[in-house]
C-alpha cells in the first residue's frame, strides 16, 4: 500500500525532443512500448479520468449555486461533517495504535506473533460488507459482550477503525525494521534513557512513515461505504456517512446532488494525496 516507488530521477533533460526515452541503460522503447503506453493511458482515461471528470462536471451542471445548496443541504452537511470528524478521530487512534502495533510486531517476540502478522492484513482482504457484519456480530444487538453500538455514531467510528487498521502498521513496519539500531545505541551511550531514545531518535525517524500511513487511513476513512452500511443503520442527520448519503441520492435519481457531495469527497481525497506526495518528497530530500 505504501508508495514505495522511490522514483529514480531522470538524469539530465537534454533529450527533450524524444517523448519516450529509455531509463539509463535500457534498450529503446520502440514501437511496442509506445503502443503499451498509449493503451495504458487510454484505459486509465476511459476507466478513471473521464468518469471522474464527469462527476465534477455533473456537480456544476446546474450552476455553482445548485452545487452549493446540494452540499449545504442539512443531510449532506451532516453526513460530510460526521465523515470528516469521525475520520479525523479514527486517524488519531491509528497514529497511536498503528505505531504501537508496528513496534510490538517488530521489536517484541512472543508466541502467536506470526498469526498476528497475518491477521493485521485482514481488513485489506475482507470484503467491507462482511467487515460490517462481523463487527455487528460482536458489537450489535446480539452481542455476547452485551455492548450494542448498532445504529450509533460509535458504530461508524468502529467500522472505520476496522478498515483503516493496517495502513499505519504497514507503512511504519518496514521503516522500523530498517531503522539503524546503532543510532539508538549511540544515543544511549550519550546518556539518553529508553524513553528519551524513543522520543528523540526513534519517533522523528518514523514520523514520515506515520504521517504517510495516517494520510492513507484518512483517505480510506472518508471514502468508506460497505463497512458502515449494516452497522450504522444509515440514519440521516445522525449516523449517515457521506458515501451512504451519495448512494441514497443516486437511488432517488438526484445524480447532480450526489455528484456535488462526491466532488467534495474527491477534492478532499486529492488534497490528502497531494499532501502525502509532497511530504514524501520532503522526507526523501532530508535523508
Amino acid at each position, binding site marked *: *500500500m505504501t*508508495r514505495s516507488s522511490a*522514483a529514480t530521477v531522470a538524469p539530465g533533460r537534454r533529450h527533450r525532443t524524444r*517523448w519516450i*526515452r*529509455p*531509463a539509463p541503460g535500457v*534498450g529503446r*522503447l520502440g514501437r511496442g*512500448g509506445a503502443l*503499451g*503506453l498509449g493503451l*495504458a493511458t487510454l484505459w486509465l482515461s476511459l*476507466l*478513471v479520468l*473521464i*468518469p471522474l471528470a*464527469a*462527476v465534477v462536471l455533473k456537480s456544476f451542471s446546474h450552476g455553482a449555486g445548485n452545487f452549493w445548496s446540494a452540499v449545504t443541504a442539512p443531510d449532506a452537511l451532516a453526513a460530510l461533517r460526521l465523515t470528516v470528524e469521525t475520520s479525523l478521530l479514527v486517524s488519531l487512534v491509528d497514529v497511536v*495504535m498503528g505505531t504501537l*502495533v508496528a513496534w510490538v510486531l517488530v521489536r517484541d517476540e512472543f508466541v502467536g506473533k*506470526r498469526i*498476528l*502478522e*497475518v*491477521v493485521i*492484513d*485482514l481488513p*485489506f*482482504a*475482507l*470484503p*467491507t*460488507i*462482511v467487515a460490517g*457484519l*462481523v*463487527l455487528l*456480530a*460482536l*458489537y450489535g444487538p446480539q452481542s455476547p459482550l452485551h455492548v450494542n453500538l448498532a445504529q450509533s455514531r460509535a458504530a461508524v467510528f468502529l467500522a472505520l*477503525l*476496522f478498515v483503516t487498521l493496517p495502513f499505519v502498521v504497514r507503512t511504519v513496519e518496514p521503516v522500523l525494521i530498517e531503522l539503524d539500531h546503532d543510532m539508538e545505541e549511540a544515543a544511549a551511550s550519550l546518556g539518553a534513557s529508553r524513553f528519551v531514545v524513543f522520543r528523540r531518535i526513534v519517533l522523528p525517524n518514523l514520523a514520515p512513515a506515520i504521517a504517510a500511513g495516517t494520510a492513507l487511513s484518512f*483517505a*480510506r476513512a472518508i*471514502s*468508506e*461505504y*460497505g463497512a458502515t*452500511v449494516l452497522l450504522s443503520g444509515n440514519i440521516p442527520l445522525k449516523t449517515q456517512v457521506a*458515501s*451512504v448519503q451519495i448512494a441514497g441520492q*443516486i437511488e432517488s435519481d438526484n*445524480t447532480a446532488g*450526489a*455528484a456535488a457531495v*462526491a466532488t467534495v469527497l474527491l477534492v478532499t*481525497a486529492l488534497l*490528502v*494525496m497531494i499532501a502525502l506526495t509532497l511530504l514524501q518528497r520532503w522526507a526523501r530530500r532530508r535523508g
Partner: protein
Amino acid sequence: MRLIVILYLSFLLVIPVSLIFWRTFSHGVAPVWHALQDPAMTSAFRVTGIVTGISVVIDTVFGVTISLLLVRYRFFGRRFLDAILDLPLAISPVVVGLALILVYGKYGWFGGFLERHGFQVIFALPGMVLATVFTSLPLVAREVMPVLEEIGVEQEQAARTLGAGPTQTFRRVTLPAIRWALAYGVVLSMARCLGEYGAVSVVSGRLVNKTQTLPLIVDQSFQNYDVTTAYTASFVLAAIAIASLVVISLLRPKERA
C-alpha cells in the same frame, strides 16, 4: 505494551471474525448447506466468479504493463501517471459507481451510443467489471514496481547482449524475477475483486439471479432478516479472504530469497 496490542487486535479483528464462523454454524451444517443450494446463491457464485476472473486478468495485464512503463522508461507525463495510479484507492466506491453511471449509463456520455449498438454496460456485467477493476487498479502495479526497481536493468541487458529479443528477455528474465511479487499482487487483487461491494452495488442494479454478487447477497439477505444466508455468504467470503492472506504470507519469504 504487548498486552495492549493483543487486546486491541483481538477485540477489533480476531474475535469478531471468529464469531462469524461460530454464528454461521450455530444451527449445524444443514441450514448452511441448504442456503448454498439456493438458486440466488449459486447465481451469485457464478456472477462473482465471472466478474472476478475477468477483472483479475485485466488488473494483471494492466499492472505489469504500467509497472514496466513507469519503472523502465522516462516519458512526458510519467509522474502524472504514477500519481493518478493511486487515486482509485482513495476514492469512495459509491463515487466510482456514480462516475461510471454518468459516463456509461443510459443517459451518460458514451452509454447512449453503446446501448444503441446493443452493448449495455450499466446494470450488466461490463459495468460490474469496470467498477471492480477501478477499485483494484493499482494493487498489482504497486507490488511489482518496487521489485522491478530493485532488480535493476543489468540482468535484462545481459540477456540482450546474449541475443535475446525484447519478448524473450521479458519472458525469460524479467518475468521470473518478478513472479512472486506478481503472484502476491494477483492474490491481493483477487481478494479485493471478490469482495467489492460499494461500486458494484451502484452499477449492478442488484438484479436477482442476474447481477447479484456474493457481497450483495450478504447485504440484501441481512436486510431481509435471512440471517442464515447472510452468514453463509459472509463465511465463504471471509474464508477466501483468510486463505488469500495465508497464501500471501507463504509467498512473502520466497520473494526475499
